[in-house]
């Protein structure tokens, strides 16, 4: 099992395109969006500056990219090619494959979070207390598990050709509507009412609460845990369904 996780990480690190999109791209996007803006406060965030707001948004976005895109497409393709079947002929327990996927995605998501933080500190001079940095990293990292489960579910739901468009729609939909690319306060009120229920909105909310010096809001935690349970249950159900038809 450890060898499988190690191998999953090795091959992900070898995949330059994927590493670019999950590690360099969010940090680059942070520079493009937050770079030219002054230190004005983003309205409706309780006093976060542009730099601080986008730092959490892009770190969350990077982690989301790493865990969602990696898992869904890989799993769908490997199911189609028969690698999943081959693994079932080994002594690896059935859940081992999925757990290895989630574990390796979690390893890759960590650098994508940290690179955004480093860029934010260096270029936008974001200042936070030591505990805040640690808490931010921990919370964004842990929260990404919710989307890792979603990625697994999509991987078992869709097949080879369909998986990319489906992942893209969900990925961009959740990112934009959830306020990872721009503050949802700029959306019309009816849309804002919807977006507060999205997992990505709650995800960014976790980090923003810490930046403001407090603990994450109970509502955000509840939403993200709720989605995690739904996605994990869906993934488990789809996985079992797939196993039955081999």
């Amino acid at each position, binding site marked *: 099992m450890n060898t499988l996780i190690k*191998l999953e990480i090795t091959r992900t690190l070898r995949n330059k395109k994927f590493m670019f999109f999950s590690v360099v791209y969010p940090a680059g996007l942070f520079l493009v969006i937050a770079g030219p803006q002054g230190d004005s406060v983003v309205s409706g965030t309780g006093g976060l500056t542009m730099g601080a707001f986008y730092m959490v948004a892009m770190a969350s976005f990077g982690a989301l990219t790493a865990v969602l895109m990696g898992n869904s497409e890989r799993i769908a393709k490997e199911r189609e090619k028969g*690698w*999943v079947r081959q693994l079932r002929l080994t002594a690896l327990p059935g859940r081992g494959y999925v757990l290895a996927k989630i574990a390796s995605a979690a390893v890759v998501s960590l650098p994508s979070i940290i690179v955004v933080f480093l860029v934010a500190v260096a270029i936008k001079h974001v200042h936070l207390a030591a505990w805040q940095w640690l808490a931010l990293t921990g919370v964004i990292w842990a929260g990404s598990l919710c989307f890792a489960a979603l990625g697994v579910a999509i991987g078992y739901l869709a097949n080879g050709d369909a998986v990319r468009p489906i992942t893209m729609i969900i990925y961009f939909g959740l990112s934009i509507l959830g306020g990872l690319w721009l503050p949802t306060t700029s959306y019309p009120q009816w849309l804002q009412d919807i977006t507060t229920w999205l997992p990505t909105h709650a995800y960014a909310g976790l980090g923003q609460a810490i930046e403001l010096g407090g603990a994450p809001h109970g509502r955000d935690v509840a939403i993200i845990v709720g989605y995690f349970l739904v996605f994990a249950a869906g993934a488990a159900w789809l996985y079992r369904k797939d196993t039955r038809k081999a």
Partner: protein
Amino acid sequence: MKTTAPPATAVASFADVSKAYGRVRAVDGLTLDLHPGETVALLGPNGAGKSSTLDLLLGLRTPDSGRISVFGKSPQAAIAAGHVGAMLQSGGLMEGVRVREIVGLACDLHPKPYPVDEVMDRAGIAQIADRMVDKLSGGQEQRVRFALATAGAADLIVLDEPTTGMDVTARQAFWSTMREQAGQGRAVLFATHYLEEADAIADRVLVLHKGRLLADGTAAEIKAKAGARRIAFDLECEIDEAALRGLPFLASLSLSGTTVRIQSHDADATVHALYGLGCYPRNLEVSGLGLEQAFVAITEAEEARTS
């Protein structure tokens, strides 16, 4: 050809196993035992249920009825215990890794692994150990699959069309490795559509047709079961076709020019009666059917019986 008396303990057994997909009965009341040290070929036309049978044996599918046990356990438990090594046609490989890494993974996952280098040597992939898995030819991929199936000390090796995509040399090397494995007391079960492979390698041949077991025996027994031996001769006198068709134990008869070809259930009796016809046969040849013809004869007879 060795004839093995069935030992008391079966490696794997199917007891009245059936599996249907919708209306299609892929496996229909299959009962059979595999024994240690046996090399068994599974033959059948496309759609005969070969792959379904292997899937059931490996626990990739569950039967609708009947019981399958492998080393006295469920197929899944037997695989988890490392009793079974399998190579499937549909088994894909992990992409983005090197040959050595994927073989290393298989060894690591096996409860009783062999050293990685030994496994690669045996599969003939030591020279391509550092190649990326995605850049292999069909034959090389097949050998990597074989390495995955033999990464540890399994007691039953299951192979689905193992030599597809291999050239003649690779195929020979493959089977000599397989014979070694069987020589160490392992059971080997392989599905193939190369009948000469079954004839040359298997101690026992199973013929499947529409999910049912039509024949189970040595290649020689299967050939005998198909009935038949071939008799060919030339006639220089006037050919009396009606008299020829009246010969005993005739399965079929064909005439081309002065040459007569007969398939007979009892060649000795047919030839004896032939001399009684008063026309002297020249260039008389009596030969057995190849496994291929026997196979065709058995499945055709079954088609005729069921339709």
